[in-house]
């Protein structure tokens, strides 16, 4: 009864292709990842030199194009709906910053109406997106 007989062999897992597998996985996820992105409306942002950056996670965008159309969360909305939408958002996140991505040729009146609605729901932190590089040399 030779139970102690050694039957062990030198076993090994080939690891030389691990790198290839890792790269295949990496490429697979790179190709299939879609970043959540808001399309909004096409706007030409105004030019300004003084600029701050804000934490993107706190930001909610309002797009207003030069025809006065307003888009929030990729939906065209009316000014009167702003209170409902942002009232809900501000109760979820009181730190919310409302970013205006507004075309430089929009009438200020439209922006002003939206801001009045925002004041109603105490969404008071606003942010006017601008572009440092647009229209170089031209102030406005």
């Amino acid at each position, binding site marked *: 009864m030779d139970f102690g007989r050694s039957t062990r062999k030198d076993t090994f897992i080939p690891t030389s292709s691990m790198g290839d597998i890792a790269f295949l996985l990496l490429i697979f996820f790179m190709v299939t990842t879609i970043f959540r992105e808001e399309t909004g409306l096409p706007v030409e942002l105004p030019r300004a030199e003084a600029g701050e*950056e804000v934490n993107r996670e706190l930001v909610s965008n309002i797009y207003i194009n030069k025809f006065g159309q307003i888009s929030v969360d990729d939906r065209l909305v009316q000014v009167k709906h702003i209170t409902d939408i942002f009232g809900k958002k501000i109760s979820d996140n009181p730190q919310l910053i409302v970013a205006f991505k507004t*075309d430089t040729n929009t009438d200020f009146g439209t922006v002003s109406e939206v801001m009045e609605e925002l004041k109603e729901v105490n969404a008071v932190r606003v942010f006017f997106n601008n572009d440092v590089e647009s229209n170089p040399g031209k102030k406005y």
Partner: protein
Amino acid sequence: MAIMKKKKKEPLGELRMDSTADVAFLLLIFFIVTTIFAAEQGLTLVLPGKQKDNTDTAKVKQSNIATLYVDENNFITLDRKSIEINHIKQAISDRLLANPKLVVVLKIHPDADYGLMVACLDELRLANANKVSLKTAEE
């Protein structure tokens, strides 16, 4: 003839593949380090919010107010005197130096361009005017 025979017997040259992973990783790390995600730039402003009663409103002396007005024709005036957009920064800086309590009221006509409002606000920021009140002019 002997030379030719010797050449034929030589094994085919092999490309060394063992360092490709290292090269790939170096490239990967290089791009991870150098990538900058496009950051959004803009001007921040805090709106007054909903006023419950008149006690919330701050009263400012008339002498501490500078009014920058943009009319419906995109014409800018500072305290009723016409001013060019590029001169706002200097004018406000001077007035801030004379009176640090200065509050700038930016009054914009609803038909004025939004771009001009941002340009004015930008000039005020560059002049370090922190007390800015945004107001919409009546039609």
